[in-house]
């Protein structure tokens, strides 16, 4: 921890956004400093909308999921009236977690410490020896579990915000809402989170994973061995070098960004771009799925949904990568140099067993802590973090690619500058920081 609290000017000065000189620099202190993390907790994670979960995870009355969001243990429940609830998982009595299970179905949560009990709406139900408290002790919800200040849903994706005065979720998402819509539109009967989550950690600053998730420039050097696998399996001869140099990136507002291309990349999409390695017998079904999309959504939107590959980052810590499968990934810093990551597979409800199987195989060919690519990403982020021990003498990351371009591609870095400009605005408290720009 630094001795003095930094001024807004000092904090804003951690990022150099020189538009005339086409130079964008990030001071590496932002990855190592405890004061910065404390400010992020206060000004970013306590103010922004954070992903809680998907409606499919709480399908029935009494369904619940317990998970940490923004470092806070929460309960996500569907109550007897079918309503969604986001509750703080902490007893009204002494504060212990009232739920230790990850997921399930129940109508009552009993604290293990003194057996105070709450229903799935958070309402106080009972305690041993109620008579020792005054008769009005439980009036006006005084001993209920506390609801998270805000919870809103957008097309099945449920977010919470710890700031009562936050703008509505739909306004917060801005242009990113359209991109969540492309994912939501994959399933004619909606989407669902597949069982089996990927819960891991990375010994690096959380902001590096947001950058990496939308970084097309690293694909070939970091992931050459993944492309070797595809070539071997698909007996294909594509050259890796040009794969990511096309496509485009967009600032979606409020720090959200996307890196996108349509029909360009060499991997298969279970929904719905056939790859030779899946075998001829899969081809007919994949083409059938694609026809169904085109009929349902029309050829233009259908092509975007079926053939588009998208890496979407939603500020501050949500990634939805719709690539060789679709992953929803969120992460939170425990320390400046250590984050916890939770990732899931989202898929169309009711897809055939053969299509679901292809999806799950395809997901882990690249994604996740044992895939052919994500472990190498993690390695790179951890090497960066190790390098930042030199931050005092070697102070800057360079994020300037494409600043001179009117049409930045996936190997440029506009998408990361979009994130950083919003970060700079919130952390410094300087509302004059321009969120748009090259």
């Amino acid at each position: 921890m630094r001795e003095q609290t930094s001024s807004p000017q000092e904090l804003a000065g951690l990022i150099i956004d020189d538009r005339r000189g086409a130079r964008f620099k990030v001071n590496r202190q932002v990855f190592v400093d405890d004061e910065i993390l404390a400010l992020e907790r206060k000004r970013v994670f306590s103010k922004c909308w954070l992903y809680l979960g998907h409606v499919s995870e709480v399908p029935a009355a009494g369904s619940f999921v317990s998970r940490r969001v923004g470092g806070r243990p929460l309960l996500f429940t569907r109550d007897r009236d079918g309503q969604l609830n986001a509750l703080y998982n902490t007893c009204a009595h002494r504060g212990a977690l009232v739920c230790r299970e990850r997921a399930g179905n129940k109508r009552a949560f009993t604290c293990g410490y003194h057996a105070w009990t709450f229903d799935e709406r958070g309402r106080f139900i009972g305690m041993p020896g109620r008579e020792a408290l005054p008769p009005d002790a439980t009036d006006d919800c005084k001993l209920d579990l506390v609801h998270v200040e805000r919870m809103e849903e957008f097309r099945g994706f449920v977010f919470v915000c710890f700031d009562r005065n936050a703008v509505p979720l739909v306004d917060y998402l801005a242009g990113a809402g359209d991109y969540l819509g492309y994912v939501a539109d994959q399933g004619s009967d909606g989407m669902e989170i597949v069982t089996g989550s990927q819960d891991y950690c990375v010994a690096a600053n959380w902001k590096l994973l947001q950058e990496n998730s939308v970084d097309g420039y690293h694909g070939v050097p970091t992931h050459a061995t993944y492309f070797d696998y595809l070539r071997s399996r698909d007996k294909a001869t594509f050259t890796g070098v040009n794969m990511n140099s096309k496509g485009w990136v967009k600032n979606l507002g409020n720090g959200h960004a996307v890196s996108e291309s349509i029909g360009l990349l060499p991997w298969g999409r279970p929904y719905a771009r056939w790859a030779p390695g899946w075998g001829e017998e899969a081809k007919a079904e994949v083409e059938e799925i694609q026809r169904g999309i085109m009929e349902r959504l029309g050829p233009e939107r259908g092509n975007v949904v079926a053939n588009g590959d998208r890496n979407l980052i939603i500020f501050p810590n949500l990634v939805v990568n719709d690539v060789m499968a679709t992953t929803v990934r969120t992460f939170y810093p425990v320390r400046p140099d250590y984050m916890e990551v939770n990732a899931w597979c989202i898929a169309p409800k009711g897809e055939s067993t053969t299509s679901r199987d292809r999806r799950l195989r395809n997901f882990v060919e690249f994604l996740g802590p044992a895939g052919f690519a994500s472990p190498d990403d993690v390695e790179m982020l951890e090497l960066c973090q190790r390098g930042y021990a030199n931050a005092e003498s070697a102070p800057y990351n360079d994020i300037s690619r494409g600043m001179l371009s009117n049409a930045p591609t996936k190997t440029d870095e506009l998408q990361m500058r979009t994130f950083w400009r919003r970060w700079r605005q919130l952390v410094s408290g300087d509302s004059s920081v321009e969120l748009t720009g090259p």
Partner: protein
Amino acid sequence: MSVVLTRSDAEDFLIKEAGLLDAWKLEEWAALFTDDGEYLIPATDDPEGKPGTSLFLIYDDRHRLEERAKRLLKKNAHAEVPRSQTRHMTTNVVVGEGKDGVVPVSCNFVVFRSRMEVTNIYPGHAEYLLVNNGVGLRIRSKKAVLDVDALRPQGKISIIL
């Protein structure tokens, strides 16, 4: 056809497999599998899940497990450059009842992995389906189930368990 496999034969085979992995003889490891072999690791929060229904950490068919072995030996498989030192401990081997030439074998394992001055531990149990192809034992299926509820602090599985 009933198959008789003694525990010590099964144990010898599993010890041989562990030795190949610790020696980074990964292509030789892949060669232990039958042509329709598979290598599986379920999610840490769904250890009973079925591949194809639940998202696994590893869902390798025969081609992919061989490619996994080849990949990890490459100089640009960054997560394993420099390579981890590993030590596979295999215990509590139980041979089940064979059927149609396939024998289920289970064991406990602990794998120690050290790299760049950090050591992680991977505890769990493994379920094998072994067959004897006439030349020797081969693996039709290996499922390694971890006894952890999140990959923390391990972070990743860039070695073969």
